[in-house]
């Protein structure tokens, strides 16, 4: 089976000279939850925006295929109409419009019979959206806003849902609830590509993960593979590898620093893991 989304060695540049993505490739299978992890500034958001067509004339190089269509450098409306829905980090809500109006805009262009069913699915998942229908979106709490963003996205019946840091700014319990909703969405058959800094949460729900650093994918695999990697454990999951003396994986050269200090979560894996 060919993947739903296939990104092949794309290069995205800002201002024609600053590389944000440097030959990124990944394949997202249908019905998968694919998590891209990485520190600030690694290019996670850029990756999603490039796929969504929101960066003019980008990617400069490389191919993006979605369900058999070439979509690189297509305008965002075209990409959206193929069934890719992107929820940006700021959630992309219309803050001055009501919850109901935001949802109505999610139904833009839909004329099929499934609208009612989808509304029921969304209200079943987030009943709060029904209660708050007449409220302005900006009066919602952070978690409710994320739910509205997810609900609106689902009304577009996405084949691929792309989420930028869905846990950002949310209290741990709320973030957990949002990720549980992702599982519900995934079970319905929607493919999800998400980028996250909260690796622990993301790897709990993901089927496949990739680590992006400085514009390159440095590691890919199942959550199990990633969790088994010592560098990932130390840097992303904050599990104190410093105390355990374990056999070195093939990826790590012997020059590795182990000062014994608590992992900072900002150290780069890139120099060690690039193959």
């Amino acid at each position: 089976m060919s993947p739903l989304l296939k990104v092949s060695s794309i290069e995205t540049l800002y201002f024609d000279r600053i590389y944000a993505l440097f030959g990124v490739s990944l394949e997202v299978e249908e019905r998968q939850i694919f998590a891209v992890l990485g520190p600030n500034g690694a290019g996670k958001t850029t990756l999603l925006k490039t796929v969504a067509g929101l960066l003019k004339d980008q990617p400069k190089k490389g191919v993006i295929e979605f369900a058999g269509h070439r979509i690189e450098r297509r305008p965002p409306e075209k990409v959206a109409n193929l069934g890719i829905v992107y929820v940006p980090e700021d959630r992309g809500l219309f803050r001055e419009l009501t919850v109901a109006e935001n949802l109505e805009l999610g139904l833009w262009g839909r004329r099929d019979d499934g609208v009612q069913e989808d509304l029921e699915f969304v209200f079943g998942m987030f009943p709060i959206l029904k209660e708050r229908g007449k409220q302005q979106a900006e009066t919602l709490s952070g978690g409710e806003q994320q739910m509205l963003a997810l609900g609106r996205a689902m009304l577009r019946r996405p084949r691929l849902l792309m989420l930028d840091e869905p846990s950002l700014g949310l209290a741990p319990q709320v973030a957990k609830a949002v990720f549980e909703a992702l599982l519900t969405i995934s079970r319905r058959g929607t493919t999800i590509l998400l980028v996250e800094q909260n690796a622990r949460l993301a790897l709990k729900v993901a089927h496949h993960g990739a680590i992006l650093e400085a514009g390159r994918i440095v590691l890919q695999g199942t959550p199990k593979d990633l969790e088994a990697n010592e560098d990932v454990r130390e840097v992303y999951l904050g599990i104190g590898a410093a105390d355990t003396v374990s056999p070195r994986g093939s990826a790590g050269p012997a020059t590795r620093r182990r000062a014994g200090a608590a992992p900072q979560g900002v150290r780069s894996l890139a120099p060690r893991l690039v193959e």
Partner: protein
Amino acid sequence: MARFVQYALTGLSAGSLYALVALGIVLIYRSTRVLNFAHGDVATLGTFVAFALISQGYPFSVAFPVAILVGALAAVAFYFGVLIPAQRQGATLLGQVILTLGLALIFQGLIVYQWGAEPDRFPFPLSDSKTWKVGPVFISELSLGTFGAGLVGSLLLYVLVQKTRLGLAMRATSENLPAAQTLGIPTRRVLGISWGIASALGVVAGIFLAPALLLDPFFMLDPFLKGFAAAVLGGLNSLPGAVVGGLILGVAESLAGGYVTIQFKNTLAFVIIIVVLLVRPEGLLGHEFKERV
């Protein structure tokens, strides 16, 4: 007191047209962040089209809608033919504003070329010499019609923006363009329509202003500046603000002209604006765009 009411009514009538002009400016500004300096000249073009049609014997009921359509189409053509290609080339907002200034001058040139610069009387079905006496004040047919035009224009726009799907798309597009794009809303078309509607309102204002003024290629300059001032006064991104600003400005200048001196008419209006902006820089009903960097 009767004098005061009389001045206030005259002011409301003029103010309702300033409001229409201001609505057009605000509509374009809040959807595309472009200050349209050609707004007055598009209105002038439409008014001259109406004038030409009436001179050739067409009834007002034909000339009026045709003029509105021409004004709207001119703006839509400018949006798609000039502004969007300029944006594709990476034009800054200031650059786009300068383009509208250029358009204004082109329209002025075309109008002078086609119709000459001699002032002309605009034949209009409503007269300002036919008046009714209501209590102690006089109301002319023209000023009543003018007020009606301003009211109907504003209400139609309100219904369109607040109650229709197109209006919802317009509000969404002007608040968060990338989000609207990713939802598959045809944002270019929505913005183009906004330009057309804005200019249509401008033409309505122009046609109702022309009978009180003499028709020449530059007759909209003063109303455009007033409309612009009204828009700033109300808050450049607020449609209700444009109406409030227009009415306040109309009444203020009418009172100033009546009580102080006619030479002071324009001055006082702008003094009010300066004072308001010193106290409330975002305008009476405006709020700053919350933009994330």
